[in-house]
């Protein structure tokens, strides 16, 4: 169909990083990331919110401290 649909299919098939998708579609990782953002605004994927520091973490009130901070963005497919 098109790049947006191809990316959705690759995510469903198990491609896990934008670089992996970029290699398979022979486009740049930046373009993949741009398309993912369009897919997010269309409601096909949603960003998983993970705190980038203890201060901004939504779990800080219940956290016993010392969690690992994951840098990077994660988008999950909406069902």
């Amino acid at each position, binding site marked *: *169909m*098109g*790049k*947006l*649909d191809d990316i*959705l299919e690759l*995510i*469903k098939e*198990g*491609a*896990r*990083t*934008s*670089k992996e*998708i970029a290699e398979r579609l022979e*486009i*740049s990782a*930046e*373009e993949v*990331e*741009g*398309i*993912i*953002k*369009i897919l*997010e*605004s*269309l*409601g*096909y*994927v949603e960003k*998983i919110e*993970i705190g980038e*520091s*203890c*201060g901004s*973490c939504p*779990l800080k009130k*219940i*956290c*016993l*401290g*010392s*969690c*690992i*901070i*994951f*840098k*990077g*963005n*994660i*988008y*999950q*497919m909406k*069902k």
Partner: protein
Amino acid sequence: MNECHDLKYISKNKKQGLRVIALAGNPNVGKTTIFNGLTGLRQHVGNWPGVTVEKKEGILKYHDKEFLVIDLPGTYSLTASSIDELIARNFLLGSNADVVVDIVDSSSLMRNLFLTMEIFEMGIKNVIIALNKIDIAKKRGISFDVKKMEKVIGVPVIPTNAKSGEGVEELKAMISGMAEGKATTNPITPIYDEPIEQEIGHISGVLSETPLAQWYNVRWLAIKLLTRDQEVIKLVLNYLGPKKMDEILIHISELERYYKHPLDIVIANQKYEFIDKLMHQFVIHFGEVHETFSDCMDKILTHPLYGIFTLLGVFYLLFKFVFTIGTPLQEFLDNTFVSFGQLIAPHIGNETLRGLIVNGIIGGVGSVLSFFPLVFLLFVAMSILEDSGYMARAATVMEKIMRIFGLPGKSFIPMVLAFGCNVPAIMSTRTLEDERDRILTMLVNPLVPCSARMVVITFLTGVFFSKHKALVAVGIYAISLFLALLSALILGKFVIKGEESPFVMELPEYAIPSWKIALIHSWERSKEFLRKAGTVILFGSIAIWYLSSYPQAMGSGLSYAEKLGKVFEPFTMLMGLDWKAAVSLIFGIIAKENVIATYGVIYGIGENEEALIMLMRVAMTSLQAFVLALVTTLYIPCIATIGAIRAEGGNKWATVAVIYNLLLSSIIGVLVYNIGLFLGL
């Protein structure tokens, strides 16, 4: 307000006759910098009506004229799927802006023009494109024929570099001219496949006969109906009635069957391809897609095989770093607590009070607190790995392994978080929509060694494996992780079955970590360790001291601790662990560090730290210490973790977690001990 205007937001300023300039664009394109460049300090920040989304307004003074500049929320499209998109869309629909400045990131033009096309499809003509971040585009080897771009797109294009102020004066001049009607535009709009165009034409024809045609661009309304935009469906229903609306929806369903996809993705795809073709007319160089340093590194670090070896190597070095620098500091703290205990002991006349303070508090809390340098250094190392971008790669490798073992891919977030603490890790399973995924992740999560268990592992490997402590520590981590994966495979196959839910990650660029940030983060995290030592471990140590001193001192065989330990000893002896280990494991359920605190109290570290190590070496073999470290890592989760599982999964799964961990640790403990004995270890 007329009913027909219910999609629109009408600005008060518009009513007052002040000319309005709206700034639209994707997030992070430099919109705020351009807003500041246009308005200077003449700004006001408030909220959009009825919502808590920030609304920034400012006055642009150009020669003797004034304009009100409104910064719209950053969006990637105008589909109304988020409050930001709805605000931007309704503002633009309300014809509030005399001029719309669409700020696009020239280094990622494709996705930026997607929004531009959506603005054009609304029928808005007074648009200026600010081709921002032109410096970054140049660096990437991307160049444009701006004149050609203006011709192709149909609106003025001003290259800008908001940071340096380049192009801002030209932009002001263009805004002023367009607001006064001196600029004519002819924005291009996407053309879709024939079946879609036919349906757009059909719906537009129907809508043209309604009053909606006076207030909205009917082509835009038709496209939005095709994409099943709920806001637009509601609006149109008011004017067409249910019968005509049903006819339109039937046509839409037929088209969806034809394309075998929902029309929103079909239209988005075709819009994207349309932009792609447009760009080939005015982009001179797209920039070379060459392998960056980051790409080369990723090929190794996220490789299914090399990635695993690198991960193991990195964790070995991490422990080596922690032990090499941390052990002398830990020994120094140990000696300090011992000296302190010896210093104050003669000054406390009351024997009970002396026992409580020296053996109970200093012995218990001190033995745990002496590990602060190791915990702090672990967090420093973790922070460095996070800031360098490696942790995200490690997560990718872990995710690949987890998938083989049937763990849902998204579980890697809670699994990575668990290395710090299982409580937030279990709480973060909320990100997993699927019930099966959530439960499965929650059950195996406590098998990932948290920082509290790291203290116990460090202590026991430090005492019994002085030469190869880092290797043994990594080994215990590896066994625990393998068992977590194996458990996921078994539980996933036989207990909790379900479907995989896909996701994708954007890995951060590699970066040189900042020591300052690493130290700040590590302190933030380590503070909790100190707080815990002052609360849970303090009370635990007092309780252990009481139980080991009453009704008669330990050694008599009559202390509560000995009695309690002896009850469980027949069972723990199957894995070579005596009553002291049994007691320490029981207290470890409150907080895992209590395993060490218990030994500190039982052997009286407050009086002689060297004696603790010597006594432990006499009382325990290396094999038994290894089994104790492994069992501590695998057995019943701490109370806080059980509470978290209960809160997230209910009593049933909290009970399953406790029983499963107990069974698993017992089986592994017995197996490892007996295999070790068989091998003569």
